[in-house]
């Protein structure tokens, strides 16, 4: 009852304040000049990224260095998580010992197989069409990370590790992605451009589809990095709690 009264008071306050604000608040109908510049120049114009999608062209071209450093933050956060849960070689071998036995009815397993294949296709499509439709490397990678999570939930993590995708491999794929981003960012320096600049040496079109120069490379590499990074984290999180307590020698 006490909580309900608090909620009602809060709702009345919000409504009252917004009614009061209505008189001197006009909804914005125009965008800032900077936004207008990006809309006009993302495909046509002199400072063009050759991408019909304005958001991707800002993320990887106009404000590319911004995204490069945000990717560095992402890299450090995942490294920090892996460091907190670090295991010695024997321990990580021991953590892999287990039998993949799904205890769920058979239809669940079959449906999961179909859905995992679909998730892989859809996430790749999100990442590869990042310069044409809403989406890109980040979103595609986040969608990709759902597939191993689903396998872990249905078939346990041992099934994933027996089929070759263990923590080390995931970290390697992620490092390849991040290294690729760094190298692609350095390529424009060879032609007297600036760091991460979208130069004409990157392909503009392939098979009649606009690629947006370097945007498509960044999207693919970011897709790999984000997807594999989250996969490594999920693999670590799915180690049984009993086993982890044994590693830590917690007596409590």
């Amino acid at each position, binding site marked *: 009852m006490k909580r309900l009264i608090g909620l009602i008071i809060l709702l009345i306050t919000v409504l009252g304040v917004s009614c009061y604000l209505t008189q001197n*608040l006009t909804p914005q109908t125009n965008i800032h000049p900077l936004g207008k510049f990006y*809309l006009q120049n993302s495909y046509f114009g002199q400072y063009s990224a050759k991408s019909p999608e*304005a958001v991707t062209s*800002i993320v990887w071209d106009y404000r590319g260095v911004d995204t490069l450093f945000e990717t560095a933050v992402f890299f450090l956060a995942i490294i920090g998580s892996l460091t907190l849960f670090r295991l010695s070689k024997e321990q990580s071998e021991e953590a892999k010992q287990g039998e993949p036995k799904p205890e769920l009815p058979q239809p669940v397993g079959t449906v999961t197989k179909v859905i995992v294949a679909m998730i892989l296709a859809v996430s790749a499509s999100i990442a590869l069409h990042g310069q044409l439709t809403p989406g890109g490397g980040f979103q595609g990678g986040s969608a990709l990370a759902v597939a191993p999570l689903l396998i872990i939930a249905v078939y346990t993590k041992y099934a994933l590790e027996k089929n070759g995708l263990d923590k080390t491999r995931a970290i390697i794929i992620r490092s390849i992605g991040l290294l690729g981003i760094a190298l692609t960012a350095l390529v424009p320096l060879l032609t007297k451009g600036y760091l991460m600049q979208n130069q004409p040496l990157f392909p503009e079109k392939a098979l009649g589809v606009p690629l947006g120069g370097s945007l498509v490379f960044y999207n693919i590499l970011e897709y790999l990095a984000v997807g594999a990074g989250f996969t490594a984290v999920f693999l670590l999180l799915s180690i049984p709690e009993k086993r982890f307590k044994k590693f830590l020698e917690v007596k409590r």
Partner: protein
Amino acid sequence: MIAILWSITIVSLLATLILSVYGIIAKPNLVKKLIALTIFGDTANVIVVLLGYRVIYPVKPPILPHLSKTALEEFVRTAVDPLPQALVLTAVVIGMAVNILIAFAIIQIYRIYGTLDVREVGKLIPTLLRRDKE
């Protein structure tokens, strides 16, 4: 009518922001603190996206509909601001990664101390340090 809906949106987002800050400060449980933190981050992101919105009737996403110059003028007139969306896009993934880091730290704290209450964790730390000295 549109003006009042607009102001209700803004004020309720600000109220959510204040409530989540209260949650971060007042809740003793670390998981509840993390939940409040994620709500805070998501609300901040929605506010940033709202900065680039325009209240007109045919409002379009910032994606060029056709690859022809004739469509450009109408596109600039109706599309929303792409810049806040681009900033939020990276902020969401970074937020997710940082939340994972905090979640890992909380799990480790629970394994070592056996509790998630910050007050009890604060009491336990000195005893653990003393045990190491003996």
